[in-house]
């Protein structure tokens, strides 16, 4: 399947979702999104880190240093309480948007 470009503004949502289950480091976040989307979504590498830092600054995720699976120091990001609220709000908004768009597209 071809890769899709991410619509504007969805990167934040994806990142928030990716770190919502457990803390992850940058590379794992990008891998995870890639895998879960069945290789459809590829996070532009150049935007990942700036986005992570932006979310951190907003207080939606927080970073801690920990050991990675191969025992190296890595920076893990996890969702904060504010981040969880944000994720819910954005997920909700996204679903309403997509279902609305589908309704229009399914118009007979």
């Amino acid at each position, binding site marked *: 399947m071809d890769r899709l470009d991410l619509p504007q503004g969805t990167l934040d949502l994806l990142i928030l979702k990716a770190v919502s289950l457990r803390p992850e*480091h*940058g*590379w*794992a976040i990008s*891998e995870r999104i890639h895998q879960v989307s069945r290789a459809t979504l590829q996070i532009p*590498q*150049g*935007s990942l*880190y*700036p*986005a992570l*830092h*932006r979310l*951190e*600054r*907003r*207080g939606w995720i927080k970073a801690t*240093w920990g050991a*990675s699976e*191969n025992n*190296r*120091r*890595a*920076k893990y990001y996890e969702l904060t309480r*504010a981040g969880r609220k944000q994720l819910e709000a954005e997920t909700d908004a996204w679903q309403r948007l997509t279902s609305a768009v589908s309704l229009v597209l399914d118009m007979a």
Partner: protein
Amino acid sequence: MLTDLLYRLRALLRRGAMERELDEELRFHLERETEKLVRSGRSRDAAAREARLAFGGVERIKDDSRDVRGVAVVDAMTQDVRYALRGLRAKLGFTAAVVLTLGLGIGANAAMFGVVDRLMFRSPAYLHDPARVHRVYLYTTSRGKESADNGFEYTRYADLARWTTVFDRAATFGQRTLAIGTGEDAREIEVATVSASYFSLFDAPPALGRYFTASEDVVPAGAPVVVLAYGFWQTHYGGSAAALGRALQIDRTTFTIIGVAPDGFAGITDGAPPALFIPVTTFAGVVRESKDYYTKYSWGWLQMLVRRKPDATLAAATADLTSAYRRSLAAEAALDKTTPRFDIAKPHALAGPIQFQRGPMASRDARIITWISGVSLIVLLIACANVANLMLARALRRRREIALRVALGVGRARLLAQLLTESVILATLGGIAGLAIAQGGSQILKSIFLPADASLNVATDWRTLGFCAFVALTAGVVTGLAPAFQSGRENLALSLKAGQREGTHQRSRLRSALLVFQGTLAVVLLVGAGLFVRSLRNVRALRIGYDVDPVVVVYGEARGTVLTDLERAGLARRLEARALGIPGVESASRALTLPFWDTWSVSLFVAGIDSVRRLGRFTLQGGSPSFFRTMGTRILRGRGITAEDTKGAPKVMIVSESMARTLWPGRDAIGQCIRVQADTMPCTTVVGIAENIKTRSLIDDTGLHYYLPIEQYQPERANLIVRVRGNATDYIETVRRALQAEMPGNAYVVVHAMREVIGPQERSWQSGATMFVAFSFLALILAAIGLYSVIAFDVAQRTHELGVRIALGAQVRDVLRLIVGAGIRFAAVGVIAGLGLALAAGRFISPLLFGVSARDPVILGAVGSLLLVVAVAASAIPALRATRVDPNVALRAD
């Protein structure tokens, strides 16, 4: 919100840590990506390359990540500043050259700004709402020529104050040099005579005591109270509160000290700041003992200030003043119906600027200063062009470094910011150097342009500092933009290819244009300098109708010693005799007036002429028989004053050439009859014609002047002129001591060399010449350095090409011609453009010149040749270096 703030704070304060974390994070990412690729079967190297490619420019990502920290600007700036400082430290020679060049340019301007600001822009200290306060000027038209005057009679001031309605304050002030103290401590000091309302124009509560009130400033005579200036209080009373109530003798009157003005208060003054303030009516009615100063219109010695009501417009103010002025003129005419008044045509008044030098009566000096400020700006432009050129050369040399940075993902905007940071740092250093230069320079400027005790300290003056900072920053941005502009167009790939040679080397157009621009401006300034120097020489060479260097002038100040007219006449004769006895004195004469000091004129009546006054202002001099010999004024026809022209003898007069021609055109003046003072007086017969002399202005003096034997006209009012062998300045003390011995009581003599009296008259040309010469040579040096640096840089860049040429058999001569030729071409274009500009500007500067055309071919030619010679010299040094290029070394270098 709080997290955001904390995050930014951490970004600012723990910048190093965050950078390290970012590095580590990105490195970790790349490693994991590489590992993944290796697992999928690629070689380690291929995997690493692919991971990096997929990732994109690391520097770019870092920059973007830094941007989201919200402190990117601060961050980038600190980084740029560090980077710039490192670069500047590495190239100390370059840094010094730029800082010094900018320093000279900025310094010249800061110093000039200090002077111009003080003369024209700064409003007087403590003045309340300066925008509403005006000086009043009166205009009259006489013989088709309108002229402004700001000399008010007290009566006129009172009329205008009373008959205007749009002002909430009106005040008057004058300034006089008066003697204070008694005995040995007596000295002359500046005293302001002001109305009580004067102080209410300022927000300046007294440092001690109080100001005088309206009830102490009343006609006919005010109260003898005095307010001290702060400085005078400090020096004479040690700043003690006990000064209040103490007595102070001013002239002959004993005053009581009632207050001290705050520090820095000088009121509104055009000359030296006053040390004392006394009520205007006390000065007129008590010190001068005038009985009619407030009823008549004969003594104009004051200036008038008004403050508009907040809702009154400037136009309304002027209209109001004009109608009051016309009413006042009518009142004056009604007062004195007996003397036929010649009509004052089109009288009107003006609410003018508070700064005298911005008003309609601005002096020639002020105009010269305006020009010189323009000149100093041009010097700054040349300095900036030089610095821009140096920066360009540096940018060219750093091409590869810059290309590398671009390749590493540094954005254009960031690159520009870095270049600008560097130039702004340089300009800041230049500004500091400029302040130091201005501090020294302004002392010199002050002595040229400002009254002796005006304060001018660049380093503590906020306005000058602000100006300096503004100029420095502008210079920084302007000079920084040039190389930024240049590097914006660099071809990356070309610059990066190692060993890439500039084959047929190309000089940047911008650099050439800057060079020509400098040459042009330097030529314009040099032409100006030439014109002013010639003017000064012409003014000095002017025949003013008497000798200056061997003449000493003396006037006696009675100061309280009351003498009868007879005694005063006797004293004058004794002084003359005593002066003659001084060794080295050739001759001495009594004189009614002293040139450029005071003038005297009385009504004249000549048969057949309706109104002599309409023909001009005729000034009168009285002298002893030795007068013409003492002054060195030539008698053209007839005779001078003789010992026979005594009180009882027939009245005689010697007239100037101009006067003879004006009163009796086409006829012989000798033998004509003039009635002096009234038409009922007996004839005064013209017995001689003297050459014209200048007594009021060096250049546009009408020379309408006549001489009466002092024994026949007011012998009691005599001053003294003394002619010495050699230079007058050497005799001042001798003359003073000898004559002082003759003075009775408290009276004293004041002695000056005629040169000191004439000096200020030449000042505008003198200062114009000095400043133009100084600035234009500064400009020339800067332009020469500019040319030198460009040519030297070219030679360095062309080493390879020159090596080839020499290897192919080019002679020293050929190489010299090649390099110096380039220099001369630049200079020639500059000279042509500069001379063209100078010719065009000549029209504007003509009124300030004297006896020299703004298009003087000798000056234009000399300046053109000078610039070419300098250009040859500046390019010869690098050219000689070029001839020493060893083709072996040059060709093997790469």
